[in-house]
């Protein structure tokens, strides 16, 4: 088993990979299939992750946390290998890929790219090993697509900074040891590495989600949270900082969504061949074959786009509008593939006995986070026309 389940790799995508990339993909698949897949439907049903710290540690031992960063105990692998990792993790569950994206591409990347040397040495090796968990606080209850209006504020007080405000929809928030917090200051928006043990910092898990249920999502509150000077990111000012981090994580989503799609496509394919109605396999009906062929087409196209963007990222030529192309297309098409798979499975499609409805519901979140469909559409529109339709 390589880039794809052989059954759905009609296009021979596997040829696009080299041996190193296949080894990395295989290692992640082995781990994810043996250590996560058997339990994840149960976690989803119960709305929890059993022993999330233990899971993070196992992912750290494998080497996926901050795998595309260099130094500080990070593996220093390629963007393509990171993409393949996201593919395999999300083939199991979007919530697990979210955990890894937030740890590696949002929290660790922000610290690695913008943090002071003290902050890097304090957190990055522990986060790479999975001994420490990070989260990333940008979105607020009233500020989502337009974070520039954020109300979280940090003020200088002697050599310290004091932060007040709240953040919403924060993955890993309740289990994090360190939170990357973006706040308004007199010098514009700045970033802070805030230890979650700091007095005044609290995180409450958000319940009642019907999507990403095997993922911890939290609301953060900061009430006079006091941190020393080395916690502020020295250089970066304005939204460019957090938006750079989001582009990193978004790249993983481009790949991950195809993992969810692959699982639903191969599940539907197997089901259609095994399930008989009117005396023949469901797969023998033209209506079903139309569905399967369309799913396969969009899957192959999405994979080719993901691969192309990865090669550009490795070459250092990837632009953010290109990531928007990938994010918009791949999540939208993956969701459509999962919904179509749901219809092929009939009533079984709504059961957690099969992975399809779980992936379908998860992708509703993925469609919105890391930039909504609407925002990416406007980013692409702006890139094409040169006219900004939203600011």
């Amino acid at each position, binding site marked *: *088993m390589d880039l794809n389940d052989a059954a759905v790799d009609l296009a021979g995508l596997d040829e696009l990979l080299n041996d*190193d990339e296949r*080894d*990395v993909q295989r*290692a992640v698949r*082995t*781990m994810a299939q*043996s250590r996560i897949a058997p339990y994840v439907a149960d976690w989803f049903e119960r709305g929890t992750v059993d022993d999330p710290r233990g899971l993070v540690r196992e992912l750290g*031992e*494998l*080497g*996926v946390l901050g*795998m595309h960063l260099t130094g500080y105990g990070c*593996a220093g*692998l390629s963007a393509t290998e990171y993409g393949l990792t996201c593919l395999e993790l999300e083939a199991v569950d979007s919530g697990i890929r979210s955990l890894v994206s937030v740890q590696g591409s949002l929290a660790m990347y922000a610290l690695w790219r913008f943090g002071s040397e003290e902050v890097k040495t304090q957190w990055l090796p522990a986060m790479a090993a999975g001994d420490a968990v990070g989260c990333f606080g940008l979105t607020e209850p009233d500020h989502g697509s337009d974070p520039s209006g954020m109300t979280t504020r940090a003020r200088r007080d002697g050599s310290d900074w004091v932060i007040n405000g709240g953040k919403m929809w924060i993955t890993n928030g309740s289990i994090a040891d360190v939170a990357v917090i973006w706040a308004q200051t007199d010098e514009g928006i700045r970033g802070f590495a805030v230890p979650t043990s700091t007095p005044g910092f609290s995180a409450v898990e958000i319940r009642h989600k019907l999507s990403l249920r095997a993922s911890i999502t939290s609301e953060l509150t900061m009430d006079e949270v006091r941190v020393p000077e080395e916690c502020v990111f020295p250089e970066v000012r304005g939204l460019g900082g957090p938006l750079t981090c989001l582009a990193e994580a978004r790249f993983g989503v481009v790949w991950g969504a195809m993992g969810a799609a692959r699982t639903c496509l191969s599940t539907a394919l197997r089901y259609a061949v095994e399930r008989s109605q009117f005396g023949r396999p469901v797969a023998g009906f033209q209506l079903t074959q139309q569905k399967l062929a369309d799913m396969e087409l969009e899957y192959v196209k999405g994979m080719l786009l993901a691969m192309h963007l990865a090669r550009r990222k490795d070459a250092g030529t990837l632009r953010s509008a290109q990531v928007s192309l990938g994010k918009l297309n791949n999540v939208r098409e993956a969701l459509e593939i999962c919904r179509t798979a749901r219809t092929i499975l009939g009533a079984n499609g709504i059961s957690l006995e099969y992975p399809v409805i779980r992936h379908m519901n998860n992708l509703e979140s993925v469609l919105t986070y890391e930039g909504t469909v609407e925002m990416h559409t406007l980013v692409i529109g702006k890139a094409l026309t040169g006219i900004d339709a939203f600011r």
Partner: protein
Amino acid sequence: MNIVVCVKYVPDAQADRTFSPDDNTTDRENVDGLLSELDEYPVEEALKLADATDGKVIVLTVGPEDATDAARKALQMGAHEAVHVQDDAIHGSDALATSKVLAAAIAKLEYDLILTGMASTDGSMGVVPAMLAERLGLPQITLASELTIEGGKAVIRRDNDASTEIIEASLPAVVSVTDQINEPRYPSFKGIMAAKKKPLQTWSLEDLGLTADEVGSAAAWTTVTSVAERPARTAGQVVTDEGDGGAKLVEFLAGAKLV
């Protein structure tokens, strides 16, 4: 402590496995191969022993060119060195010839302990460990579900249906281990990267002082004369309960000598 682990490259058991029509040997061309799952256990056990004793793990495999993949996987798991014996003349070797090649290769290595799996997942004969011990003139203790090294001895636990045996042998010895002995690690990214720099030697029959007529199909003591697909499963027998269902079940079980 130097530990040699013998591993086999086998067709992926998840794929449809077939025999070559020409000579009734396992078809290794059209099916992806991998490190035999049962050989991950001795690799893991060797790594644990090596960690505890500051020792070295050398994996040894005999097979076609692609068999390097099995050695590479073991190196990625953490083994220190690998030897791949590859020679076209080896194709078609039976267990006797395989053990001869393995023994000749091991004779060129420094070792205190030789570990193997309990059987391969393709041939499933499970006789190579014993043949290997005989050829090397070493004690063999097989089917270990637990292994400890103490005072120059290997001590194993072997679980039988009705008893548990504790068996020891002086080192060096050949020990085969079961799938109950540990939980093999999967390669980490660090392991994958480190493996690229580890020595992987390829030896030919000539390097081992063997000749082509000692191995391969021609020298095999056993031959697969024909193969046939397993017949399709026949429909089961439905017992309708008309007040005598229990009796009918007992009748069926007794008839099949299952009770």
